[in-house]
């Protein structure tokens, strides 16, 4: 099912917990540039593809939900294309 956006919010939170070695419940809703780079890296590994996100898309991400929306858009576009 490569390319299907079966990526959930909980997946991203687990990834962020791994980055900071913190429990899942302590993961902040807000996402900085380093957290975002980490999420892109792990999502790319998971789907074995590159997410071609623009600077504008990356700059629009401030929260876990923003990141999820951008990843869904990118994965869906890649699957359709």
């Amino acid at each position, binding site marked *: 099912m490569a390319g299907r956006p079966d990526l959930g919010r909980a997946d991203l939170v687990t990834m962020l917990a791994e980055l900071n070695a913190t429990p899942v419940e302590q993961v*902040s809703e*807000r996402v*900085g540039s380093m957290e975002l780079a*980490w999420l*892109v*890296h792990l999502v*790319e*590994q998971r789907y074995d593809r590159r997410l071609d996100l623009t600077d504008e898309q990356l700059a629009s991400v401030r929260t876990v939900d923003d990141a999820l929306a951008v990843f869904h858009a990118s994965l869906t576009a890649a699957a359709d294309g």
Partner: protein
Amino acid sequence: MAENALGTDPEWVDELLLGGDPGDVCLRLPDPVDRATLRRLVADARTRLAGAGLRRGGAVALRLPPSLAYVVHLLATWRSGGQAILLDHRLTDHEVDRALERLTPQVVVAPVRTGGGGLRIFHDVTAGVQAYSDRPAGTGHAVIQLSSGSTGPSKVIGRTGADLAAEVLRYTHIDGVALPGERIILLPSMVHVLGLVGGLLYGLHARVELVPPQRLSGDAILAAVAERDTPATVLGVPFHIGLLASTTPTGPLPQLKRMTTGGELVPAAVARAFTDRYGVPLGNMYGMTEVGVIGTDLYGRHRPAIAPAPGIEVRESSTGELWVSCPTNPYVGLADPTRWADGWLHTRDAGAVDPDTGLVTIKGRFDSQVSVGGMKVDLTEVESTLTGLPGVASAVVVWDDGITAYVQPDGPLTTDALDELLAQRLAGYKRPRNLRLLDQLPRTTTGKLVRSATALRAAGS
């Protein structure tokens, strides 16, 4: 030695950095840039800087992301006998304006166009060169850098050409650095000391090719390593160790010689995950903007301790603070004997020096500075910025798994509105990762704001 570098012959740039075989490749972006090309680009940039009003002894503010344009204009500034003021491209207009008003460069170089996709490490930049003032540089330093400061504006740190040259030569005497003909896979920003001296200047001097990966991801770093047969050292900060430790290489990487990081100490588990996966040494470096590299452990043998770099003395003060030899006061316009006195830089790092081996162990900060991805951020700068915003009655900023701010509003205020205001005043890496609004900030019985992360967390939940 630490004389007025702007008074000395700017040919030090040619001798130390730009000399050598014209055909030698110094940068791969990924297209190779050889020394002949770099010298030509530097000469062209000198013409543009002079055309915009740079005179010998004047300053140039470089507000550029890591890019060939940055490298070329930095070298051109020095080759013109000028002072380079390095402004991180993530600083806001507000932060940059304050720095320019204070440092009055003759010329400002900023991008007129930045290309490439997101997560770039090295950017494709077209630089614009603009006149700013007609004043000479305020000091004889070759480079001026800003460090997040505890009292409003950033601290201004100056280093002379002689001091930079001494640091470059110090690197050549450290066992475990990349050798001539090898490559450095360059991840830290060249605007800051590790990437600037440990990467760019050392690489140019020692004929080590500098290779920034195409983007910030584990795969791209490994692709850069695999691209050529010559030995490669990955230079980064702790975040990059995590990226590589979580990336599965698609094949053997015999070129990978070592990974070296500066910045905060890496947890033992992360270090082990990296060495288990790649089987090469994970080196550690300790340095500061004020003096550059202070000590190293490039074979990972002394973790968490480091050995002082050649020519650097480190001692432990009576209060357990690490002091580092630094012949002249690096702070511009600041005579603070608690930061520098009598040839010793007071690092504000707690630490110990082993009397038998001379090895240095860093135990943490004495003050409010934290490290965010290798960038120093002073929490009091964040707090004083927040407190100065309209609608904010008081604020406390602490480190709690990230920069965490608790704000007591004095009227209607939302975190989104605060975010917007902060985004105009503070670079992204300085902004709180957690932002909480509280009707009332917790106070002690004497009315002082409570600064315990645990108590604040309880108050915010």
